[in-house]
């Protein structure tokens, strides 16, 4: 058997739990939630990284669908948009019951694996989605959201982002209360996108394992979206998982530098650097023609995993591709069919079947189950918090 065949065989038994996929936002932007117009039961490779046939080909067994909304949405506008994103996921699940199984718990994930369906969970990307309300946090949980990234690209009032200037210096008192309330509900605390100071504050506060839904190693590639070693070192004690991401501009140093120049070019032309409209992409392509884009590969991502394994240990790794949330993808990981290539690369590097089963499936499922256990304990001792930012951060 070639490594690729072995990888596919392994994924049949222990499929990939992917921490982050932005299909809902892509559907919002491309067809304003007209999910019949982008039928993911059929091939959508002309428009999307993701559809059901390709998820199947890629060996995906569980997906955290991101209910991301832009971090420049102010206050309750973010809440409204997040509800629409959640509704989108619910519509997708209702439309494709034979392939996508709604999952709220670790047990649901295992049931989906046994049934051969793709466990579908939701993750909110940024604390702006709760507009400083713990009641709204609980509403998101009740609607099925099982992780919340504490920030997106911008600081919020109670937490610092990795890609913004220092604000409250990590988590504020209210930010720590948000983490405690997430623990009490059983919602995973996601530390992708947050500043290292926020990561450390969250680890000091949380009673449950944390996740990084889509982040790689800062020691391998120095980008603020990645995880510093001192934080990775704390994962064994915390029990959490760092789910490696593939986004070239985070994982490949040459791509980091190239992206900085490309972003500057976008701003010079009057566009936001994350703008993906046709006009913005035209400017981007022109830049790319005169400045060839450095290409990340499967090996680039495997380098991150090798290092993260050394620092955090095999029990604390996972995968979060960020498909449909990034314009570019590494060679060999071009869309959701790519996971077997990564597994094959790791097999070639001597990773065992047991190791790989942990990476793809077991670690992530364990973490969600652990968060449920912590929530059960906490609910026995305290009621829901209605603390406000004004009270705690005054």
């Amino acid at each position, binding site marked *: 058997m070639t490594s690729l065949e072995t990888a596919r065989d392994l994924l049949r038994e222990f499929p990939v739990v992917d921490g982050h996929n932005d299909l809902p936002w892509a559907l919002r932007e491309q067809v304003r*939630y007209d999910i019949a117009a982008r039928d993911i039961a059929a091939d959508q490779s002309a428009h999307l990284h993701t559809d059901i046939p390709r998820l199947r080909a890629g060996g995906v067994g569980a997906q955290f669908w991101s209910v991301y909304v832009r971090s420049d949405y102010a206050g*309750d506008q973010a809440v*409204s948009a997040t*509800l*629409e994103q959640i509704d989108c996921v619910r519509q997708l699940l209702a439309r494709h019951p034979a392939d996508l199984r709604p999952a709220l718990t670790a047990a649901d994930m295992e049931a989906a694996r046994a049934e051969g369906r793709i466990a579908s969970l939701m993750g909110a990307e940024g604390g702006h989605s709760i507009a400083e*309300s713990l*009641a709204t946090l609980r*509403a998101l949980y*009740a609607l099925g959201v099982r992780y919340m990234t504490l920030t997106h690209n911008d600081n919020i009032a109670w937490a610092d982002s990795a890609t913004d200037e220092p604000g409250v210096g990590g988590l504020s008192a209210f930010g720590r209360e948000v983490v405690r309330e997430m623990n009490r509900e059983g919602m995973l605390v996601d530390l992708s996108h947050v500043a290292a100071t926020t990561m450390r504050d969250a680890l000091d506060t949380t009673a449950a394992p944390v996740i990084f839904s889509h982040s790689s190693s800062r020691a391998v590639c120095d980008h603020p979206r990645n995880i510093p070693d001192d934080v990775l070192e704390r994962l064994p004690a915390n029990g959490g998982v760092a789910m490696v991401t593939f986004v070239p501009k985070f994982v490949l140093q040459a791509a980091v530098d190239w992206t900085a120049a490309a972003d500057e070019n976008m701003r010079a032309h009057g566009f936001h650097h994350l703008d993906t409209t046709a006009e913005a992409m035209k400017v981007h392509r022109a830049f790319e023609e005169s400045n060839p884009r450095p290409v990340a590969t499967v090996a680039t991502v495997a380098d991150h995993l090798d290092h993260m394994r050394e620092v955090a240990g095999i029990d604390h790794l996972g995968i979060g591709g960020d498909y449909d949330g990034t314009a570019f993808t590494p060679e060999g990981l071009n869309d959701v069919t790519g996971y077997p290539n990564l597994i094959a690369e790791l097999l070639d590097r001597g990773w065992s079947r047991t190791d790989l089963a942990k990476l793809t499936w077991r670690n992530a499922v364990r973490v969600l189950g652990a968060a449920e256990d912590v929530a059960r304990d906490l609910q026995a001792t305290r*009621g829901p918090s209605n603390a406000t930012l004004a009270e705690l951060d005054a």
Partner: protein
Amino acid sequence: MAELKYDAGAEGGATDDLPAPVIGEHPGPAREPAAADLLARARALLDAHPVADGHSGLSRALRPLSWFDLELGESAVDTDVPRLREGRVGALFWALHLPDGMTGDRAVGATLDQLDLVRTVVRAHPDGLRLAGAPGPVTDVRHSGRTAVLPGPAAAVALGDSLGILRCLHGLGLRALTLTGVSWAGETGLTRFGEEVLREMNRLGVLADLSGAGPDTVRRACAVSKAPVLCTRSAARALRPHPANLPDDLLTALGAAKGLCMVPLTAEQTGPSVRDVADHLDHVRALAGADCVGLSGTYDTGSAHPQDLADVSGYPRLVAELLRRDWSETDIAQLTWGNVQRVLREADFAAREAQRRRAPSTATITDLDG
């Protein structure tokens, strides 16, 4: 004074009528047991057919309280578990109150806060309250000796003009929405988007509440809705000119559409006495029909209530008055419980039917209303 004395005498209870002790004794003792008997019959009837109350303002009344205990009794509000039991309240629509003038996205977040409060309070009182939406579970909760809480109505602004948000609110338990105060349900009736909202509500099983809506909205909603519509707090305008009360023609129209007019127990809308409330019930029953009249306590909303109906424990006194007026037990059973059950059953059926025929709507207000 003279008139009062004359009235008392006319009823045969003149206490100084010593020369005729036999005559004086009979009306006295005979009247007392009669009232007590009516109250006993009312309680027995309500034990079998409890009240499904169309409107509670409890979530607003509880919000400023730092601590409360509905299980043992809470004097700061009109509603708690002991008084719900005494009043024989088997189901309660729990309104999601928004501060006046709140619009847009702010209203969405505030509605989530209110839904969270309802869920939290209900969960904290498992022996007295339980969330339920569909008719079967509502009956089960009532059989278990608890009060079924149905979250709603919420204000139409709670949707942020988005059908996706409507579906999320339904997912969080919302059972009724008041169609007023938004661009798509105003004085001129329902716009195309407004009708689409109503169709999506029908598909989900969210009841339309038309109390306070303009007459054109009421008529159009009656025509478009596949499920019975509610007026969760409307009395008869012919008897009391309150803007939320329904004129006779709309009461007739509501009856023709098999909707439900839930009469509020507030001094402002129905009057200061039990008899005033009963007058409204008589009037609504006469115009809309016995199938189409219900009760709405409207407690904890800040409204003043008729004498003897100061809190949720007062329903037996109201039912005793209806018995005195010779309402049949069947009509009373429908008024208190049966009509709401019918509406929930029909809404449930309509939702199942609609889900077979219609996909969730992706229409937007810009698509339909420009």
